[in-house]
């Protein structure tokens, strides 16, 4: 019985966790129009957490997202064309605080410090891998997100590993990312995350 209670405790409040994660971070910066007509950078990645106290876990995350656009240049001299792309690599480190130790549905808050490394690419002929105008620029932005989440954990005292899913909404703010000579772009606003994984 003691063993079962310990297992239940292991897979509840102070769990370790790992999850596949989908996320978005918002940008209403007009510069972002160069890469996406939607005001978000979606990402897919991984989140891991390590329980350090009954209601606190340290979480780290990595997300990768790519957006791109075909660009038309209209003028009296004719039409021009090139492609843009943005690749974002987002690293986060923070805490997940679960104040209410409910059995299955657990609300929590998750503040995270975030670093976003972005790579922009411009290419005026994607069919020619050797053309001179394959332009690449990179930059990094730093900031944070504060999300509130709700997690569903299929807690079962008989199992060491239990499935879990979560959804988060919150606000994120990052510094402007200077993409060399291209200009800068800033991400700030609504963030969301959705994950599927396990607690153990």
């Amino acid at each position, binding site marked *: 019985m003691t063993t079962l209670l310990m297992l239940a405790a292991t897979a509840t409040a102070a769990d370790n966790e790992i999850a596949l994660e989908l996320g978005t971070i918002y940008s209403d910066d*007009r510069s972002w129009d160069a890469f996406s*007509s939607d005001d978000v950078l979606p990402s897919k990645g991984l989140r891991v957490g390590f329980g350090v106290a009954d209601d606190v876990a340290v979480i780290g995350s990595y997300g990768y997202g790519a957006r791109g656009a075909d660009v038309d*240049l209209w003028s009296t*001299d004719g039409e021009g064309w090139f492609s843009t792309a943005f690749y974002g*690599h987002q690293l986060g480190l923070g805490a997940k605080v679960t104040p209410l130790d409910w059995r299955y549905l657990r609300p929590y808050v998750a503040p995270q410090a975030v670093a976003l490394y972005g790579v922009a690419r411009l290419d005026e002929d994607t069919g020619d891998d050797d053309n001179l105008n394959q332009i690449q620029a990179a930059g990094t932005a730093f900031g944070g997100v504060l999300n509130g989440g709700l997690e569903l954990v299929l807690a079962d005292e008989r199992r060491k590993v239990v499935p879990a899913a979560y959804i988060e909404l919150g606000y994120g703010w990052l510094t402007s990312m200077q993409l060399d000579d*291209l200009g800068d772009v800033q991400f700030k606003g609504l963030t969301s995350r959705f994950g599927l994984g396990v607690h153990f």
Partner: protein
Amino acid sequence: MNPLILALAMTGCGWNSLPDQSYWELEGPLWDDAVVAAADGLYMRLPHAGKLIRLTPPEGEDDPGWNEVGAWPAGTFPERLMLSPDGATVLAFGSYATCELDDETIADEKIESVEDCLVEDENAVVWHDELNLVRDGELLGQIGLNLPFNTVAFNDEGTYAVAYLDFDLVDTLDGALVNPNEVLFIDLATGTATSVAAGFSPERVLFTQQQDVAVVMSRNQVVVVELTSGTFDTVTAPTTTNLDDSVVTRDAGISPDGRYMMMTVESSTDLYILDISEPMSPNWSLVSMDAVPADMQMVEGLVTDDEDDPADLTVVTYSNRAQVDLLEQKYLTGIETLELEEPATNILAAQDQLLLFNTSGNDYHDVYLLDPNALTVEEMRAENRVMSMQLSPDRLHAVAVLSPEGSDAGATAQEQYYDESYGLGIFDLGDASAFSLVAASQPIGVAFSGDENLSEYALALLQGQQELIQVRLTDGGASSIPLEAPATAIGSFGDGQFYITHESDLGLVSFLDPETGSLETVHGFATSGLIDDETTLGR
């Protein structure tokens, strides 16, 4: 391996598979290939970003070959570039916006861009025109313009620039009431500007070689401006007394001695001559010619009947009359007429000779070499019609772009081949000989080195061809230099180097050193400021 490349490779993000979920539309090109070739490099507008950049041949791998003009004011959009005659100063017409809201609103609403201002009040954005002087890649100074001037005329020495509004270059005029009756005399040494009333719609400005008088041609009048006193005194000489008439200038020039201003006008056989040596009493003389002049050229001191007092000539050709007339300026009479076999519409001044040719598009092939001393004409012949003609720097050769044309019924196979093709005509002005080369496509640019020692060659670009053709003028021997991309224009700059602009949306310019044959490219410059999509407010 670079971790970034590794990360991108792992996620399947090669250059051939860029994500393309979206669509972005921009108005206009990112760069303007109508560059200004100054002594220190090429100056180019980036219309989308609102930047002015200078391109130079890269010096080493770390040199991108371009930089933004220093101290260029944020928010100023360069709109038209001009180059002073000495090649040292670039004049850039520009415009910038201000937000005409009270300071409190601007501070409270954090208005920093044109877009912010438009959100607050769509009528609060006001655009201003200015003229920016640039030298050695740095902004020298700015002159505010109270009129939307768009072009500049320079005197030969490059000490004065005259800004005026050319209606041929205008789509729309901003402002409720525009007064196009002024020109702006700018002292390029000091940057001081003086406004001078010059009549309605000034359309051309000429200077005497002595630099003491400028002549501004406006609708139905000519204004003579005295330059030596610094007060810019003017005298007006109407070209017609009938207000219902419209006298439109076709061609104009000032005699080398600075005494006469001569002009031809549309649909008139008269040559208008104004004595500007006595500017306080302008008096037109009209000399009736045999037909409506097509071109006019003034020639200095070439008549040697009196070696101590060589006379100046005015040479006139006609589009529908096969003759050339030579008028001795000293007497304004005594027209010498030389008969031609075909009319000539254009005149170029070669070395001690004049080159006469026809670009009307009619079926004329003759090119004439007129010796105004001997009053003789030698005939050369182009295989096809002449579209344009350029003289080599030493003015001993000329290269014409020739257009395709229909063949006569009895044409030989060789003649038909020539007729169906574009070509280059090479004219040796020393011995009045010519030969023509057949081009695979339309020649879109011909350039000579500015170095007279290298004027043995001409460089030609052909439309859609990814190579530069180097033609030896003595025998037409041609070789080709491969290019990175099809070219759009060619020109020379600096100490004899060439530049070539290419078909490219993100920017591509090549620099050719004719002595070594080396070709260096500068690329990607048009992406500067690409995603900065807010328009900064000006001062």
